[in-house]
């Protein structure tokens, strides 16, 4: 069990560091080929990807019904990560206005929070699988196993707590991104 948890932690750290390294590499390529102007347009593109990734939330809340929720979740993880990468390249290494930098920071915190949620979910799934196998070998009926697993409160509680935190973190990012967009709209 401990080995699995450690592996999931490594995966989350890999995704987060990979995001930063990929942004630095893309930035270097754009500078190397004199294509810095592309960075300007990666911002709107990244934001569009992030917004589109919320189709998962829409599906989870049953505003739409087609498709399996785990598939939507995988799309949410992928599109949000890629969108964050594009926004990170867009922000560049330019320390000028404070609001865009706070927005970038909030985006990174949101990404880290998302990866934490991914880790918690994977750990919970593994723990469930392990417990289910244990209960089944103990001779319990399938109905009794299901009932036992439903009563496993620890994992449910961890995920619930995480969701409670992830939403305001995401909205903080959205607020700062909106302020940045608003300033662009106002000042031109």
């Amino acid at each position, binding site marked *: 069990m401990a080995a699995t948890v450690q592996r999931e932690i490594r995966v989350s750290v890999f995704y987060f560091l990979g995001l930063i390294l990929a942004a630095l590499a893309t930035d270097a390529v754009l500078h190397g080929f004199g294509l810095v102007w592309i960075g300007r347009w990666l911002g709107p593109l990244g934001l569009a990807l992030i917004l589109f990734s919320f189709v998962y939330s829409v599906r989870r809340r049953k505003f739409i019904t087609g498709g399996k929720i785990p598939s939507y979740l995988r799309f949410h993880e992928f599109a949000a990560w890629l969108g964050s990468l594009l926004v990170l390249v867009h922000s560049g290494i*330019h320390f*000028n206005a404070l*609001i865009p930098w706070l927005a970038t920071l909030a985006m990174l915190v949101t990404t880290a929070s998302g990866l934490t949620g991914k880790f918690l979910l994977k750990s919970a799934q593994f723990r469930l699988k392990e417990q289910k196998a244990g209960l089944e070998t103990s001779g319990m009926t399938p109905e009794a196993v299901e009932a036992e697993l439903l009563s496993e409160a620890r994992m449910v509680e961890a995920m619930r707590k995480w969701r409670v935190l992830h939403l305001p*973190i995401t909205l903080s990012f959205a607020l700062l991104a909106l302020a940045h967009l608003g*300033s662009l709209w*106002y000042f031109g």
Partner: protein
Amino acid sequence: MKAWSGFFAVFALLVGVVWYSPRLAFEPGPLSKGHQKQSDNCASCHVPFEGAGRCESCHKPKEFESNPKLVFHHQLAQESCNACHKIHGGGQPKPFKHELLPKSIEANCVGCHARPNDQLHRPLGENCANCHHQTAFKPAQFVHKSLPPAELSQCTTCHEKPADRLHQKLTGSCQSCHGFTAFKPAQFEHDQYFRFDRHHPETCDNCHQNSDYSTYTCYGCHEHSPGSIAGEHREEGIRNFEDCANCHASGDENDIRSRRSRSEADYSQPAQPSSEPVKHSYKKRERHSEHEEDEDDD
């Protein structure tokens, strides 16, 4: 509610920063030197929801008319100062785009740029685009066609004459052998016509009299007199022997080019030795021979 405290803290931070210093919150880099007086008044340049378009409230178009270096501004196809001038952020200004100019102004380079006053540029015409790109003066690719015809033949004004034995003896036009794009490859290879050896050195005037490379004669030295050459060839039954290099590829009398290149007429038509130089064209001997062969077939 506790979880939302972070969100409210961010909101409070946002409002606080914007209220305390809008510049700190939104300014995308420091203003350029000439605009720093406007640092506390964004609205002096920015029109809300329209962008930074108030340049003319300070910069009067009349200023441009009196300055020859700025007068082209009136001709710009795009009336956006920001297309070229970077007001925020410092660093390098945006590169000027010549495409913003109408074609008539774009073609008149010396209207804005001073012509270099060096030996290379002085005789050139005004079509700078022959050699230079619009993005930068260098690198440029020199095009000889830019030179007036009189200058075009004066190669040594710009190019140093090669110090090898062959070139030092030449006095004719470089263009006889060399093209305008590169020194090598040169079109002329003497070995195709006649190979030099110690008895036949690269002393051009021995064979090409008066530096006329369209003709040559082998009677320029004491070894080959018209009488002795005529006698030797008539012994062999050869009647047409005026164009020596047509048969003799080098000074070795046995180094004879293919007999196929020689027509029957060489043997049948009687010829008198002449001390007149042989006129020839700079075509490869092989091709010349094939041509003669075709004529024989006809």
